[in-house]
Every structure is written in C-alpha cells, then in structure tokens.
C-alpha cells in the first residue's frame, strides 16, 4: 500500500476529515429548513470514513469504526426512524405526525420529530455506505 507512505495525502486527509464531518452535520441540520437532510449527510459522513480507509487502509478505518458497529448502525438507524413514527402513534397521532411529540407545542414537536427521523436516516445511510465500502474492500483480499 503505497498511499500509506504518501505523506502529503496522509496529512491532507487527516486535516480534511474534521471538515467532512462538520459539513455532514451542517447538511444534516440544515435539512430542517432547506435542501439537505439525513440521506445526503449520511453519504458525506461515510465519504469521510471512506477517505480515511483509502488513505490509511481499511484496517485502520475498521479500528476507528469497527465493522460490527457499522452493521448495528444500519439496523439501529432504521429502527430509530421507524420508532419515531411509532412513538407519534403512541402519543395518539398518525404515523409520523410529529406535532404529537410535544402536545403543548406542536411546532416544537415537529422539530423534534424531524430531528429524530433525520438522525435515524443519517445513521442508517452512513453505516450502510461504510458497510458497502468494507464489504467491497474485503473482497479484494
């Protein structure tokens, strides 16, 4: 793996990574008001992991974010998203009727709901993308 010896790449990647994740969260939270949301954020997040894996090797990436975590992350993400919908139903609303999450302040409830759902999506997509990367990377060996 020659890339590991390429200092410029290693340094550049390492310094870029925080911005990757920051941007991911920016897109995530911007999704409340404009274009963006969990799906795009998840991909960006995963891109950071993929970059790390490409530069430092898959094993290094796996050391940071172990594969079992990723697998659980996919399921957990989906679970959070669905559970939010179920929670609204338990609160007496329709499925995904976020307003019911905070009965006193429906608008606040809306925010809360979207936050949860988008977090679930982020988690599922980011883990899913990472998982695909891991699986493809494993195949080559």
């Amino acid at each position: 793996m020659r890339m590991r010896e390429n200092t410029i790449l290693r340094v550049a990647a390492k310094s870029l990574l925080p911005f990757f994740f920051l941007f991911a969260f920016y897109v995530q939270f911007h999704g409340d008001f404009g274009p963006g949301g969990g799906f795009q954020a998840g991909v960006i997040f995963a891109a950071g992991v993929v970059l790390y894996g490409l530069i430092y090797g898959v094993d290094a990436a796996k050391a940071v974010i172990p594969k079992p975590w990723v697998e659980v992350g996919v399921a957990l993400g989906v679970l959070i998203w669905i559970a939010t919908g179920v929670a609204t139903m338990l609160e007496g609303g329709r499925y995904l009727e976020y307003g019911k999450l905070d009965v006193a302040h429906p608008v606040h409830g809306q925010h809360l709901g979207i936050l949860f759902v988008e977090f679930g999506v982020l988690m599922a997509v980011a883990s899913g993308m990472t998982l695909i990367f891991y699986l493809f990377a494993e195949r080559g060996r």
Partner: protein
Amino acid sequence: MFAPLADWASSLEALTEHFPVLVVVLPMLAAPLCFLVRHANLARAIGGLAAVACFAMVVQLLGRVLDEGVVSYRLGGWPPPLGIEYRYDLINTFVALIVSAMAAIVIPFGQNPRAFAVPPGRHNVVYAVYALCAAGLLGMTVTGDLFNIYVFLEISSLSAYTLVAIGSERRALMSAFSYLTMGTIGGLFFLIGVGMLYQMTGTLNIVDLSERLADVSSVRTLSVAFAMLFIGLSIKLAVFPLHQWLPNAYTFAPPKVSAFLAATATKVAFYVMLRVIFTIFGRERSFEQMNLDRILLPLSVAAMFMGSIAAIYQLNIKRLLAYSSIAQIGYMTLGISLNSESGLVGGIVHLFNHAVMKGGLFLAVACILFRLGSVKIEDMRGLGRRMPWTMGAVLIFGLGLIGVPGTVGFVSKWYLVVGAIERDLHVVAFLTLVSSLLAVVYVWRLVEVAWFSKASEGSSAQTVREAPLAMLLPVWLLALASLWFGISTDHSAGIARLAAQQLLGTAP
C-alpha cells in the same frame, strides 16, 4: 375491576385505526430487530410474528374495505394530495392479503440451513431481508402515492436481489446480478415514467393524478410516460420477452425464497400495472389511445406457449416451475389485454390462484431439496413412494396448473375463456385451452417420474424419508387452499369480481 379491560378494548380500537400503516411499519420494524438480535430462531420468531400480525391486520382491513369502501390513512396527518396517503381499496387489499399470507407462511416455517450461503450464526440476516422485502412489497401495494411506490419498489427489489444472492448455489450470485441489472432497468423506466407524469401534472398522488390527467392534452408526453411505465413494470412482472431474469433467479435462489418471490413479487408488479392502466390512465386511454391490447395480447399468448413449451423441456424442477410461471404470468396479462370484466376477473383471480399454486410448489421443492439434496427431475425417479405427501401435494398443484375442475386453476381459466369469448376472440379462447394441454405435459413429466418410474439402483431416492412435518404443513395448507378455493369461489373470484368492477369503474 373491569376498567383495565375497558382500557384494553379502547386502546385496541385505537390500534385498529393504525392498522393501515402498521401493515407496512411492522415488518419494517421487524427487519432491523431481526438483524440486531443475532440469533436465528429469535429472528425467525420476530419476523414470523410480524408477518402473522400483518396478515391478521390485512384480513381485518379487507373486512373494513368490503364494508365501508375505501380506507385511507394520512401519514403525518397531512391531507392527501400533499402528504402521502395509504389507500386501501379492494384490489390492493386483496393483493396485500396474498403478500402477507405468503410471508406468514414462508417466514416462520423451518428454513433449510443448507440452502443459504450465509454462515449458520448469521441466519438472522435472512429473516431481516425477508421482513424488509415483505415491507417493501406491502408498501408498494398499499401506498396511494406514485413516487412512494417507486421507493418501496426499490426496497423490495434490493432485498429480493439479496435474497436470491444469499442462496448457496454457485450461480446464485450471477443470477442475482442479472436480476439486479434487469430490475434496475425496469425501476429506471418506471421512475422516468413517474417523472414525466409529475412534470405534466405536478402531483404524485394516484387519485389526484388520475383526475388531473383528464385535462392533460399533451398526448405525446403522456404516451411516452405510459410506455415507460408499462415496459418498466413488464420487466418487473417478467412479461415475455422481458422475462430473462426470472428463470435463473428462481432456479438458483433457495426454494423458499423462490416460493416467496414467485407468490408475491411478480404479483405486486402486476397490481401496480393494473393501477397504472386502469386507475391512472383509465381504461379508455389505455386501450383506445394507447392500443394496449395490440401489444399485450400477442405477448400474453406468446408467453403462455413459450413458457409452457420451455417448461416441458427443462431438466431441473425449479427451472421447470420458473418457466411455468412465465406462462402463468401470460394468463394474468391476458386477463388485462382482453379488456372485459370477465377477463379482468380472470387475471386478478389468477394472480391469487397462481400465488397459491406456485408458492406451494416451490415449498414442496424445498422439501425435496431438503431430503433428496437435488432438484434434477432425473433424480426424482420413484420419489412418490418415498415422499408420498410431498409428491401428492405436487400433484394437486399440478392439476391446478392444468386447470382441472375442482382446483383453483380451473376458476381462472374459466373466466379467461369466458372473457375471450365475450370479446369474440375465439382463437384466443382456443389457444388458452391448448396451452393448458401443454401444462398437462410438463405436470405429467413430474407425475411420471415420481410415481411411475423406479428409482435407479443406489440412488438416494430409494432411501429418503418423507419431509419433516414443519415443512409439509405449509405445503399442505396451500394444497388444501388450492382445492378449497377451486370449489368455494366466493372469497377469491367474488372479491376479484368486485375489484375488477372497481378498477373498471363499473361498480354498482
């Protein structure tokens, strides 16, 4: 002291309100849970429970639909054209019933560990994918939003590819890839069609769309959209000659997966096609302007013959059943292309009947594979004596495929023939009957091998035992169903007739 009871009752009633969405949410919820528990039997229990609960809910919903007409559920409380609506009318509740019933039959009953390439410790994944696939299919069926259909189509398709690829056969991966390629092309065509419709009308809600389309004058874009949707769905449905992905996918997938997909995936695609043709575009536009029958009728008849003839010459029982499925799909699309009420009833009731028969047949193949370790027809010599219950069920389903009176197959063929005669298409009626004779040939091949030839010396067909009860139970459940619904047609053909009337807008 009765207060808690009353509480229960009222909360149950409140729960009933949410059944329309829970039908999709429950398997969707079960999927990650199955994945997380990391224990095959626990995952099976979760997936199975979800499927059975789904089935129960759909039954309840069907009752409601029959009583009250359309049942609508607004997701997030948004009103329909804006928000997503789950909309139950007769036809899709009927299809949801089939899907959930098959899920409830396939998921809980013993899977053959040898059939999967997954290491034994990870079998929970299989159930997770099953549940996801069921969720996708149910979502496609019940949603009233065209784009939502696409999303669920992709969910179900991706999990279906996974299910095929998960098979232990070496060629499973290749056939899954071919399935994926064709499926993606189909999905893409569908998406383009949806995009064009959205561009013209600005709405994705099916009911809204059908109303707004009435005012659209740009015929050319509309025709292209229709053609895109039609071809895309034809690929998903495996209409001849777009069926090339199907034989290998069904052949190399584990037989239980084939049973599930054969009984549900193509059926849901067929339902969406009905939706597009009859609800969105309407009978008049589809047939008079788009001349749908001009292309679908010859393709259907060709499918009936090409599928059946190919089935006759197959050496592998799963391949045989796969080609037979192509022929049976031909009967279903024939029902559409006849453009008459009886024909449509035949198509819809055949959707149900074929799900029962093909699902049962593939489950029987699962029994054979489990005991015999082979699905080559050659190896099944004399198997009727060793596995009488399994092969007996195969015989019953086979009679159904032929269309013998007293089995479900007869009912659908009757309606199709009547539909053809109503439209004065006597040649088509005749060809339908002739193609049944081809079914006699390939069913007879199985019967002859199983019952009338001797097991060759030293072959394992001489020593195998009957399949375990847990595997036989679902097979015979479906076998009895295929007899029951051949005699008592109130619930299959009766609902199909009402659904057809609803689709054609001729409901009283």
